[in-house]
């Protein structure tokens, strides 16, 4: 299977963490006050990107057990994507109707098939640097929206 040299930045836990790097991570930390289901102990994350893999990004925990997610803005994989946030979600994010929010659909892989979780996206408010995973009970969108198979 063809793989190129392109890779997202190294996982934080494998990097040499100088005080500068630590400070940089802390400055760019996004708080997840409720954690993420399955990773409730991860309360701070950083969002990493690499030009070669844009628009894919990587959301990585810098607190709690090691956790990193590959993801993408759901609107880039589905033009018609619309997800209404509840008042409670908006409050938790410190957002109002004028806020520009960042959306991140978690990508997973099973048997060489990549899919994005459009059902429960992660939403980040860059102004407040607060994020949370939105869990609509009656979602319109699939948990596994197929992006690509391994066959190029």
């Amino acid at each position, binding site marked *: *299977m063809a793989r190129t040299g392109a890779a997202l930045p190294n996982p934080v836990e494998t990097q040499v963490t100088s005080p500068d790097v630590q400070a940089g991570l802390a400055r760019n930390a996004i708080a997840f006050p409720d954690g993420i*289901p399955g990773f409730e102990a991860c309360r701070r994350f950083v969002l990493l990107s690499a030009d070669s*893999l844009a628009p*894919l990004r990587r959301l990585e925990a810098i607190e709690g057990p090691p956790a*990193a997610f590959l993801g993408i803005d759901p609107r880039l994989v589905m033009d018609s994507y619309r997800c209404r946030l509840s008042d409670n979600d908006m*409050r938790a994010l410190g957002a109002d109707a004028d806020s520009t929010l960042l959306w991140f659909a978690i*990508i997973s892989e099973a048997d060489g098939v990549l899919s994005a979780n459009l059902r429960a996206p992660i939403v980040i408010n860059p102004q407040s640097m607060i994020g949370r995973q939105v869990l609509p009970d009656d979602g319109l969108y699939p948990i596994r929206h197929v992006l690509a198979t391994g066959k190029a």
Partner: protein
Amino acid sequence: VLVFTRRRQEAIRIGDRIEVRVLRVGRDGVRIGITAPPDVPVHREEIYEEIRQANRAAVAVTPQVDLSALAERLRQP
């Protein structure tokens, strides 16, 4: 585990902010109304569990797929 017997329209209070009320009892299911403050997340267990599982599966992602090709394709308008 606390176990209560409740009839239709009877409720249970959890603390002073949460109420769980039996609205209807059918043969195969019970309709339950939950009143909770907005900061208390309420979810059907299977949905929470499904998303939890999906997150768990995603975290291990070291795709045997060419991510560059996917990124390239996603960059096309």
